[in-house]
């Protein structure tokens, strides 16, 4: 493993110059320096990563917990919600981010100004914006209902009383918050594509839609895949969106795993059940993480 990385590093030597990587072994006093430098991180890692992970595994180790979970209809709906939230939220967001990154490549002044505005959701704390969206939806006095009344003259639907509408609101809010971040990532990826590839493609007659499908997308496929995997892993554990936007309404039918586990642990007093609920995401989480680490190592895509 160490040698693979070393040889990779040689292969990537700057300007084709292969620098001999000297096996500079650490000498006596250097070893103690290195250990001293690593000590803070090792301490943090042991105390706040290894220990809580083991503690969590221990809390959720009783198989009976999973029987309890599966017999809870709210858990089943939570699991379905989580899958929908991740599958729809991540993919729609990524695809839109990919398309929008093309739009934001434009050099005109108003597009650049628009980009600064467009990044606002990312810069704002999720708590504030999600509560604002919650207020737009809740009661018949929220902004959306008021708009509905102003346009149609009738009262709007009570958004957070219908499970599908509340879940849609969660997903849309999630997309609203994280679209700018991934758009930025894709803008960076597009900027890394050399201009002469496009010129060559244009000569071959690939313009417009064809250029997008046959030139840009294949070149960005790796970044797209890694981003999607990373986002999937993060979104599986997304807490603030559902916690603030729908707050699980109606009747805890829009919970996702993170909020379900939170409520089980801190409202109903079953911390082990809460841990078990979150651990039930492991069958999806672990393969994604392994795939992600492999992709990152193989392709050298970095975020």
């Amino acid at each position, binding site marked *: 493993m*160490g040698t693979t990385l070393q040889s990779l590093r040689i292969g990537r030597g700057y300007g084709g110059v292969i620098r001999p990587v*000297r096996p*500079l*072994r*650490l000498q006596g006093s*250097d070893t103690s320096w*290195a250990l001293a*430098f690593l000590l*803070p*991180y090792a301490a*943090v890692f042991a*105390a706040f990563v290894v220990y*809580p*992970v083991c*503690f*969590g595994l221990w*809390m959720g180790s009783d198989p009976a917990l999973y029987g309890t979970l599966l017999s809870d209809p709210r858990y089943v709906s939570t699991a379905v919600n989580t899958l929908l939230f991740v599958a729809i939220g991540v993919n729609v967001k990524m695809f839109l981010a990919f398309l929008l990154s093309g739009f934001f490549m434009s050099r005109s002044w108003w597009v650049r100004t*628009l980009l*600064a*505005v*467009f990044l*606002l959701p990312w*810069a704002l*704390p*999720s*708590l*504030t*914006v999600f*509560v*604002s*969206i919650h*207020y737009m939806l809740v*009661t018949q*006095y929220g*902004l959306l*209902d*008021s708009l509905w009344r102003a346009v149609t003259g009738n009262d709007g639907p009570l958004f957070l009383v219908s499970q599908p509408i509340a879940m849609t609101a969660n997903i849309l809010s999630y997309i*609203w918050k994280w679209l700018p971040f991934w758009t*930025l990532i894709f803008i*960076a990826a597009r900027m*890394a594509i050399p201009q002469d590839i496009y010129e060559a493609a*244009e*000569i071959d007659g690939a313009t417009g839609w064809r250029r997008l499908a046959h030139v840009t997308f294949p070149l960005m496929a*790796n*970044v797209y895949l890694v981003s999607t995997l*990373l986002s999937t892993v*993060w979104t599986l554990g997304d*807490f*603030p969106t559902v916690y*603030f936007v729908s707050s699980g309404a109606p009747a805890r039918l829009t919970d996702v795993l*993170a909020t379900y*586990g939170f409520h089980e642990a801190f409202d109903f007093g079953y*911390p082990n059940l*809460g841990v078990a609920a*979150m*651990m039930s995401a492991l069958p999806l989480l672990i393969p994604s*993480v392994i795939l992600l*680490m492999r992709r990152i190592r193989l392709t050298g*895509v*970095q975020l």
Partner: protein
Amino acid sequence: MSATVAGRKIGSPLHYRLRRYFVEALCLLLGFVLVIWTLAPIYNMWMIALDSHDDVFNGSVWPAHASLESFRVVATEDFWYLEHFWHQFGNSFIVGGMTTLLTLLIGSLASFTVSRMHLRNGWMLTNAALMTYVIPASFLAIPFYRIMQIYGLSNHLSSVILALTTFATPYAIFIFSQYSKSIPMELDESARIDGANPWQIYYKIYLPLMAPALVAVGTYALLLAWNEYLYNFLMLSTPESMTVAVALAQFLNSDESPWNFMMATAIVYAIPPIVLYYGFRRYMAAGLTMGGVKG
């Protein structure tokens, strides 16, 4: 060949011009939709904050009697949920500042050792950091709550600082290792020949040259700490120890809590990250793309 392309363009000028206007109009339309989409929740925030308490529930889409009353209430702590507002604001700053410092210190020391000192098995540390980076923090919240009680740190700012440092450091190690590849190894080697020990190399050569990466990661850590909610909420429970995020969410506990005060508080709470973000945007963007896309 490109002459052909140009020739085709000249061949049907009207068609070409119409097409260009059409594309331009579509772009403007898209821009318009994006502005509405982006600003709607933010507009809602301001609208409610500028409303008086009675107007919040009149169902208008425009503040009828706009006033800065809610902001005065926030500034003077004139409401019982806001009694310790400025103290809590200070707490948020302490958490943000300490998290940033610790992240930069621990992250830079670790990545210096791995990438500059030819440490055998250094890749294991990088992989461990990467693992921590990709695992969602919320999944560790329940065990974290328990172990902070075991450590005797609950309801103390340091518990949040340590938790957030744990989650910010992997990203720091990642970016630092990436960025330090652009610093020639020969600098270290010549310093070593001149008799510098590793600490001096770290302090006098590595850190100054890493300044852009330090700024990028520092901004990231500060924003992470300021905007985080879950861990703040779990660890801090008394009004004196709370950060603004926790105090703000308290408004949601009661049904008749004044929306306008809450939204005014939310706006004040959002000012520091916005200023920081737009102030350091160039560095932030550089941090995001520092590794570049080599795929």
